[in-house]
């Protein structure tokens, strides 16, 4: 019930009053950070996180690596007649898959920030308000590139030789990363609507799995029942995979690229403003 007598000032306090006074006195308010500088600073934060929490990267790259190895050697012979032929068919698809899986983490890490309270500080700073969200994309880009590199290097190790060479591979990676930026807004929206990082992870993978499995990553759509074939052909992920196959191995159909870019623009136009709106109110 009762409180004790007033406690004496802490003996041997870890803070030094003179230094504190000096620290308070020496600041003059700098000019406001520009939007670009704020975005780059948040990008730097994203990269630091990749460095300090590399486990996250491991999680997202191990699954696609397992897919490449399992599908190629288990089913390659049965599906495509030879493991080599199936490997060449599968690899651009798994490149897409690996990077798109990683987009779920954009939502997970945004939700983690929200549960930790650090977002409160960011939102109370005098900065361009979407900067934390846009800056996080830069950190995400590092993850996407790592995931893509792992798959390409693994492919080369097991004998994949893209016909269009390194430039074709770079173009394909570029297109996938661009689409991933757009798709990541869907998961940041989810990250702001759901209550815990785990919930975001579950909901994210529950949507990304059907989206990537019901595509042409693993099999030719014309082997599927009619209804499913129609869905697979309409799935933008199928177009992205076809575009990547074209860019890496020749025979690019520009229609696929157009569908991919149009989808990316539509996703960004809807979900980026939605994310920003939810973030300001969070």
């Amino acid at each position: 019930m009762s409180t004790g007598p007033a406690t004496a000032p802490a003996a041997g306090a870890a803070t030094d009053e003179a230094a504190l006074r000096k620290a308070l006195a020496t600041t003059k308010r700098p000019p406001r950070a520009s939007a670009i500088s704020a975005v780059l600073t948040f990008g730097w934060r994203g990269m630091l996180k990749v460095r300090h929490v590399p486990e996250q990267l491991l999680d997202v790259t191990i699954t696609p690596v397992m897919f490449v190895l399992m599908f190629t050697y288990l089913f390659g012979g049965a599906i495509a007649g030879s493991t080599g032929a199936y490997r060449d068919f599968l690899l651009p698809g798994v490149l897409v898959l690996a990077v798109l899986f990683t987009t779920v983490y954009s939502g997970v890490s945004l939700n983690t920030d929200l549960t930790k309270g650090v977002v409160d500080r960011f939102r109370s700073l005098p900065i361009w308000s979407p900067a934390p969200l846009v800056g996080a994309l830069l950190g995400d880009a590092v993850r996407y590139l790592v995931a893509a590199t792992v798959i390409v290097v693994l492919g080369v190790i097991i004998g994949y030789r893209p016909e269009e060479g390194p430039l074709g591979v770079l173009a394909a990676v570029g297109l996938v990363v661009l689409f991933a930026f757009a798709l990541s807004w869907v998961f940041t929206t989810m990250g702001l609507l759901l209550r815990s990082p785990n919930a975001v992870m579950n909901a994210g993978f529950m949507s990304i799995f059907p989206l990537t499995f019901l595509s042409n990553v693993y099999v030719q759509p014309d082997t599927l029942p009619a209804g499913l074939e129609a869905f697979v052909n309409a799935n933008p992920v199928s177009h992205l995979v076809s575009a990547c196959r074209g860019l890496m191995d020749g025979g690019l159909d520009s229609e696929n690229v157009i569908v991919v870019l149009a989808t990316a623009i539509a996703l960004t136009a809807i979900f980026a403003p939605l994310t920003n709106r939810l973030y300001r109110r969070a």
Partner: protein
Amino acid sequence: MSAASPLAIDASGLRKAFDDVQAVDGVDLAVARGSIYGMLGPNGAGKTTTIRMLATLLRPDAGSARVFGHDIVSEADSVRGLVSLTGQLASVDEDLTGRENLVLIGRLLGLGRPEAKARAAELLEAFGLAEAAGRLVKNYSGGMRRRLDIAASIVVTPEIMFLDEPTTGLDPRSRNQVWDIIRTFAREGTTILLCTQYLEEADQLADGIAVIDHGKVIAEGTPAQLKASVGSGSLEVRLLDPEQRPEAERVLAQSLGATVNLEADPTALSVGCADADRGAEAVAELARSGVRIADFSVGQPSLDEVFLALTGHPAEEQTAEEAVAEEEAAA
């Protein structure tokens, strides 16, 4: 930089509801520049929601507030340039090191890279975190994390600091360090709005206090006025032998001239007692009359007693609904 208003915070009729819960129900505040102002109340009283509105993180449903003359809604960006917030959850990034956290905030506030680094080093030194500068914050103790949080709030000296329960969950030593820091800030002229559940904390630090309950300010004044309005503190005595309680009751009643409460514990008694000297006198009287005492204490009124006196109901734990509202506000 700011309009010439004598008040750091001038709020009237602030209201905010979450779903069905009226978290803040018409709060008025007038906080003088350079003062430490305490908002005192139990969990779920609406303190955090009020602070979040003033820090531009939440838009009020009704009412208005000006921070250094700037409206918190229409001039939110100017307000953000003047305030810094130390939230209930430590507002630092656990996956970065202490130094990286401070450089990050410095860069976001417009410092150049070398200036941000130098400022981070200076603050880490001043807050006793120099040795831990390169460690990830998730490995910091509660006290270190809180000091880093406060350091992050003064990377650029703010005109006003919002501190939301800055010592909740800290051990007494860390708590005293945080109090010393807050006092230093106030001496240097920074205005501080402090939310707390502890009367002692408000008493130690604040020049003025608003007591908040169910989203309303139910009392306001200096700590001394508040305690006087609440009445006395109390003397509590526990006996070695419950058989002696009737005798103890008689002696205390006579000595202090007040009604003695018999507590649920058969060895315990309490009695209203404004002044420690008279309490000590009464305890001496007990000893002289042969009553054997296990322990006793004389205390200033606790938050429970303040609440009981002001509202007629104890500062009960928040209801489930209020907990949800507060959690949403904090999320």
